[in-house]
C-alpha cells in the first residue's frame, strides 16, 4: 500500500514538473532584437491655409500616436526593432503645395511610407512619387467620377477613405433610419470645390433611388462659393420653398460656412436638422458662433474612436492615451474625434500591416493590405477590390453620424460600408 501511494505521489509530481517546465519554457522571454532601424512615416497635410483647422490637429494627433508607439517599443520585425519617426509636410491643400510636399517627403526626406492628404491631386502627386520610390501611400481621397484620366495607376497606393464618402449613397437613409424617422424632404447645398461638386453630383444622381426606396425627396439644390461668409441668399430660398425642407444637407461645408448655415437658418425660423459630412473641430467654439440652440440641430459625421461602436478595446485605450498626452501638452481637452480618422488611422493601418506581414518591404505590406483584414482605430479594414478612378485599392469600414448634443457630438446612426465584392 505504501509503495503504491509513493508511486501515485511520484506520478503526480512528475506530471506537475512537466507542466511547470512547459509553462516556464513558454514564458521564456522572446529573444531581443539585435538590430535597430528607423521607419519614417511622412504625412502630407494642410498645415496652413483654409484647411489648416483639420490638418494641424490631425498632424499633431499623428505625432502623439507615433510617440505612444515608440514608448511601447516601436515596431519589431524579425531581429530588427524599428523606431518610428513622423514627418509632417505642409501641402496647404493646394495642387502646387501637394506636388512640392510629395517631392519633399519622398526625395528629400526619403520616407518609408506616406499618409495623409485631402485633395484629389494627392492621388496624382503622392501616387506618382510613391510609385517612383516604391513605398506605400495611404491617403484619404475619394476620387470623383470621370477624373481617372488624371490619376496614375499606383500599385502601392491605398485609399483608406473617409467612409462617409464611400457610403454617401446610404448617408441620409441611414440618418433617417437611425435618428429622423419622419424625414421626407431635404434641401441640398455644397461648397464649390472639387469635393463639394463631386459629392453634390453623387447625391443628385441618387435622387431617384432615394425617392423610390426611402421616400426622400430633394426639394432644392445649389452650390455656394467656398469663400461665402454669409449664407443668407441660399437659406432665404430654402425658407421660401413651397414644399418645406425637413432637413438641410450641407453635404460639404467648411467650418465657417457650417456655422453660418446653422446660425442663420435658426434665425430665419427654419429650425430643421442641418447635416454636414465634415466633423466639427471644436464644438464649444462652434456653439459660441452659432448659438447653443441653433447648434442642437446640427448633425455631422465622424467621432472619436473612444466612442466608435466597432473600435477594439485596445484601440480605444490607445486613443484615450493620446487624448491624455494632448491634454498634458496643451492643457485643454481635445474633442475633435475626427482627427483620428485620417493621419493617425492611416499610421495605424501601416504599422499593423507591417506587423501582420512581419516585414517592412513594400510588396509584403501591399499584399497584406490587399488580402487581409487590418486593424485600425475604427475597426478593421478590408480591401474592396481593385480600382476606382485610378486608385487601385479602396479599404472599407463603417461610418458614424453624430449629433451635437449639449456641448458634445454623440453618435446617433451608423452608415454601413459597402460589402467587399
Amino acid at each position, binding site marked *: 500500500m505504501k509503495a503504491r501511494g509513493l508511486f501515485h505521489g511520484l506520478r503526480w509530481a512528475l506530471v506537475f514538473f512537466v507542466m511547470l517546465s512547459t509553462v516556464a519554457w513558454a514564458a521564456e522571454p522572446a529573444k531581443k532584437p539585435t538590430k535597430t532601424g528607423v521607419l519614417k512615416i511622412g504625412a502630407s497635410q494642410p498645415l*496652413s*491655409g*483654409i484647411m*489648416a*483647422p483639420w*490638418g*494641424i490637429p490631425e498632424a499633431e494627433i499623428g505625432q502623439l500616436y507615433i510617440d505612444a508607439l515608440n514608448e511601447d517599443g516601436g515596431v519589431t520585425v524579425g531581429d530588427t526593432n524599428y523606431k518610428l519617426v513622423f514627418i509632417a509636410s505642409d501641402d496647404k491643400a493646394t495642387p502646387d503645395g501637394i506636388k512640392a510636399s510629395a517631392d519633399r517627403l519622398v526625395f528629400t526626406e526619403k520616407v518609408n511610407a506616406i499618409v495623409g492628404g485631402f485633395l484629389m491631386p494627392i492621388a496624382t502627386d503622392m501616387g506618382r512619387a510613391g510609385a517612383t520610390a516604391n513605398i506605400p501611400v495611404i491617403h484619404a481621397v475619394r476620387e470623383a467620377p470621370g477624373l481617372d484620366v488624371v490619376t496614375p495607376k499606383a500599385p502601392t497606393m491605398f485609399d483608406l477613405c473617409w467612409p462617409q464618402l464611400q457610403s454617401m449613397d446610404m448617408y441620409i437613409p441611414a440618418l433617417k433610419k437611425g435618428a429622423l424617422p419622419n424625414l421626407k424632404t431635404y434641401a441640398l447645398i455644397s461648397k*464649390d470645390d472639387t469635393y463639394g461638386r463631386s459629392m453634390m453630383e453623387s447625391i443628385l444622381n441618387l435622387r431617384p433611388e432615394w425617392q423610390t426606396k426611402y421616400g426622400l425627396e430633394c426639394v432644392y439644390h*445649389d*452650390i*455656394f*462659393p467656398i*469663400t*461665402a*461668409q*454669409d449664407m*443668407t*441668399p*441660399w437659406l*432665404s*430660398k430654402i425658407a421660401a420653398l413651397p414644399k418645406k425642407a425637413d432637413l438641410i444637407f450641407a453635404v460639404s461645408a467648411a*467650418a*465657417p460656412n457650417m*456655422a*453660418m448655415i446653422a446660425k*442663420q437658418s435658426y*434665425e*430665419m*425660423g427654419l429650425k430643421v436638422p442641418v447635416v454636414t459630412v465634415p466633423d466639427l*473641430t*471644436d464644438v464649444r*467654439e*462652434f*456653439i*459660441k*458662433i452659432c448659438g447653443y440652440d441653433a447648434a442642437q440641430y446640427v448633425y455631422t459625421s465622424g467621432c472619436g474612436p473612444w466612442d466608435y461602436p466597432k473600435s477594439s478595446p485596445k484601440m480605444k485605450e490607445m486613443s484615450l492615451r493620446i487624448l491624455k498626452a494632448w491634454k498634458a501638452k496643451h492643457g485643454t481637452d481635445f474633442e475633435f474625434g475626427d482627427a483620428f480618422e485620417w493621419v493617425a488611422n492611416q499610421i495605424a493601418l501601416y504599422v499593423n500591416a507591417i506587423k501582420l506581414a512581419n516585414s517592412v518591404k513594400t510588396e509584403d505590406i501591399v499584399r497584406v493590405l490587399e488580402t487581409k483584414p487590418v486593424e485600425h482605430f475604427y475597426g478593421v479594414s478590408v480591401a474592396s477590390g481593385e480600382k476606382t478612378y485610378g486608385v487601385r485599392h479602396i479599404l472599407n469600414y463603417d461610418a458614424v453620424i453624430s449629433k451635437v448634443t449639449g456641448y458634445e457630438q454623440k453618435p446617433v446612426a451608423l452608415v454601413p460600408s459597402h460589402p467587399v465584392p
Partner: protein
Amino acid sequence: MLDIVAFWITLSLNYVLLATGLTLTISVMRVVNMAHGNWYMAGAYVFLVLSERLGLPYGMALLLSMLFVGGIGMAVESKLYRRLGGRIEPSIICMCGVLLVLEGVATVLFGPDIRGVPAMIKGTASIGKTVISMERVAVAATALCVITGLYCFLKYSRLGKSVRATAQDREAASLMGINVKVISSLSMGIGTAMAVIAGIQITSVYSLSPFVGTTALLTSILIITLGGMGSIVGAFIAAFIIGLSDSFGASFIGRYHHLLSFGTVMLILIFRPRGLMGTRVEAESKER
C-alpha cells in the same frame, strides 16, 4: 425681397467699414496696404483676448484693441515702410511680409480653428416675415458712425486738414510746415484702428480665424479701386454697388455672382479708369 434688401444694406455697410481704413492709408501713403486684411484679423484677436480672457467690458476692449493695434501699425509704418522711401514694389513686398507674419503669429497663438467673437448686441428683429440679426444692425450702425466721424475729422479738424493736405501733395504740405512723417504714421494708425473696428464688428457676425484677412483685403481693394483711390465718398458708393451685385447676385445668380461684382467693376473702370470719385490730379501726380 425685403430680406434681400436688408441683406444688401447690411452687407454694403460691412464693406464700407472694411474699406474706409484702407482708403485713408492709400491716400496718404500712396501704396496699397497689403496687410490691411490682417490688421482686421489681428484686431479681432486682440479684442478676443481682452474681452474673454481678461474679462474687460465690450467698449473698453474695443478701444484698447484699436489703440494697441493702431499703435503697432504706426510703429510698422515708421520703422519699416518709411525706410523704403516710398518705393512701391519694395513697400508692397514688405507689406506682404507683414501680412504673413500676422497670419503666422495668429495661427501659432490661437490655432487655425474658427472662433466666435462676442457681439455688441445679440438677438434678432422681425420686420414682417423678414428676420434681421441685431449683430448686423450693430455693424451697420457702427459703419455709419465711423464714416461720419472720419468725414468730420478730415473736413473740420486741423489735423484732418493736415492729413488731406499731405494726401493731396506731400511736398507742398511739408513746405507748409506740416510734419508729413507724423501725418503718415498717424494715418496708418487711424487706418489700422479702423480695420480693427471692422474686424471686431464683422467677425462677430461671422467667425474669426487667422485666414479671414485675405478675403477682407480683396474686398477692400475692389471697393477702393472702384471708388477711386483715396476717396472716402467713392468708397462708400462703391461699397453699395458691390454690395448690390453680391447680395442680389447671390440671391438670383447663385455661385457665379462674383462674375457680376467683378464684371461691374471692370465695366466702370473701362469708362472711368480713375474710379467713381478718383481725381484727375491723382492720375497726373502718378504720372509724374
